[in-house]
């Protein structure tokens, strides 16, 4: 049962990821990314991480991807042009990436094998997560606020229209 669900969600994930690469219009890519994320949420559920799954859908698929689509719309991004700016990317990057992934896959398989080991009781009740988040990981949690502050400021600075303060440098 789990395996079937895993495979189903996994198929969506793989399909979505490949589709993201295959699609030439960014909107389509974004939509396939949303599919991937949704499917991943399913995988999280399978792994017993309900809370993560929920956040995945809300924050990731919801908020972040909406932002993406918003920007795509804002910039009125059209279809991708097939320029060849980088031969290196194809000649060096992709083979490199393939070798890397094959190696990692091999390591992963060697590390955990393919036996269907039950991976344990689901450890993800929100309460325990909260305990962790607000106690053990209190500092990172608080520091995140600085991160978000920076992000906000950055977004404001970079995306605001350049008419206000600086004017034209002459």
């Amino acid at each position: 049962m789990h395996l079937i669900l895993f495979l189903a969600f996994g198929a969506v994930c793989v399909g979505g990821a490949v589709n993201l690469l295959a699609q030439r219009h960014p909107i389509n890519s974004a939509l396939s990314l949303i599919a991937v994320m949704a499917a991943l949420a399913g995988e999280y559920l399978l792994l017993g991480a309900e809370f993560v799954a929920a956040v995945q859908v809300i924050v990731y698929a919801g908020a972040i991807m909406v932002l993406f689509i918003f920007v795509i719309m804002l910039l009125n991004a059209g279809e991708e042009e097939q320029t060849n700016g980088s031969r290196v990317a194809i000649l060096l990057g992709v083979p490199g990436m393939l070798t890397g992934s094959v190696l990692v896959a091999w390591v992963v398989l060697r590390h955990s094998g393919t036996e269907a080991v039950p991976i344990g009781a689901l450890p993800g009740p929100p309460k325990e997560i909260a305990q962790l988040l607000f106690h053990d990981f209190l500092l990172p949690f608080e520091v995140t606020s600085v991160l978000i502050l920076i992000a906000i400021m950055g977004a404001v600075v970079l995306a605001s229209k350049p008419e206000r303060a600086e004017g034209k440098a002459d």
Partner: protein
Amino acid sequence: MAPSYVPLSYYLLLSGFLFACGVVGFLIKRNIITIFMSIELMLNGVNLSFVAFAAHWHALAGQVFVFFVMVVAAAEAAVGLAIIIAVYRTRETLNVDQVNLLKL
């Protein structure tokens, strides 16, 4: 819920695949926004690993890590998209191959 009978390595392979797709996307896509999406794909792949390992080790830290990754991803998205807008304003293009003023 009942214990999972899916091997850990399947999750890890899926996670690796997503990560690899992200890398490939970065390498072959021309649209900056799509490239950025590829990065998100990579992060998602990593997240899957975290959750899988968390389940494997019975350690919630992995799941907590995912939250932080999501926050970071959100922050990155905000800043990144702002940067993309800024680039679009100055260069009138989203094709990454044409953003190459600075070179050599």
